[in-house]
C-alpha cells in the first residue's frame, strides 16, 4: 500500500490483493486521513487483481469515515475481478468508480 498526495488529493494505491491480510491496514490508514476534515481520497486499484469481502468491508468503512468528516472518496482502475465483485454486492452503486485515475481526480475539481 502506498499513500501520496497530489494537488490536495490523497491517493492510496493498493497492492496486488486487497484481502483479509491488508484490510485492517487500509481501514487504519483511512481513519487517520479522516481525522482531517474534507479529505479528498482516491483509492487506486490499478495493481489490485483480487478483492475479497474483507477488502470490500475496508472500502465501505473507508468511505464512511471520509464522508463523516465531510470529505469524499473515489475508486479508480478496478480490475475485472473487482468490477464483478462490486456488481455482485451492488457496491458499484455506493462507490464512485472511475476507469482511470485522471477521471477520478477530475471528478473532485469539477465538483
Amino acid at each position, binding site marked *: 500500500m502506498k499513500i501520496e498526495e497530489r494537488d490536495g488529493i490523497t491517493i492510496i494505491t493498493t497492492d496486488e490483493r486487497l484481502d483479509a491480510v491488508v484490510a485492517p491496514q487500509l481501514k487504519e490508514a483511512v481513519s487517520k486521513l479522516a481525522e482531517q476534515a474534507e479529505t479528498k481520497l482516491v483509492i487506486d486499484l490499478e495493481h489490485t487483481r483480487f478483492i475479497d469481502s474483507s477488502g470490500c468491508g475496508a472500502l465501505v*468503512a473507508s468511505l464512511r469515515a471520509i464522508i463523516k468528516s465531510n470529505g469524499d472518496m473515489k475508486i479508480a482502475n478496478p480490475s475485472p475481478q473487482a468490477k464483478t465483485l462490486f456488481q455482485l*454486492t451492488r457496491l458499484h452503486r455506493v462507490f464512485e468508480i472511475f476507469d482511470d485515475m485522471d477521471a477520478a481526480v477530475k471528478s473532485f475539481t469539477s465538483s
Partner: protein
Amino acid sequence: MDDELSVKIEVPAEIILLRPLDHFVRILLGQLPAFSGREQLINNIELAFDEAFTNIQRHAYRSQHKGPVTIEIKVGPHSLEFRFEDQGQSFDPSSVQPPDLDQPAEGGLGIWLMRQVMDEFHYHSEADGKNVLRLIKRFPQHDGDSA
C-alpha cells in the same frame, strides 16, 4: 464425483496462510483444461475459497487460537469440491441473515458470496467437535465465461 485430482492440505488457521493457499488454488485451476480462458470462473472460485478460510481463521478460531484446518481439494471432470474441516467454534449458517445490499455494511458478505459463486454450500458439525464446510462448483458445460 469422479476424482481426477485430489489434494489434502493441513495448516494452522493463521492469516499468513491465506495468500499461499489462494495462489495454490488459482494456479492449479489455471492449468486445468476446464478453466482455460475462464478467468472470471477462477476468480469466483478463488473468492469462495478465500472467504471459507478467512471465516475459519476469524470466526471458528476467533483469530487467536491458531487451530488446525484441513482442506481437501477435489477436481473431477465435471465439478470441483473444497472441503474445510476445523475444530473450532461451530455455527448455524441457516441463521445467518443474507446481507441487505441496499445498506452496505462492513461485514456479513462472506457466506452469502460463497453461496452466490458456488453451486453447493454444505456445513455440518460432528459429534467429536469437527466442523465441515463443503463447497461445490459444477463446471459450465458450454463455452463462455459464465460463473
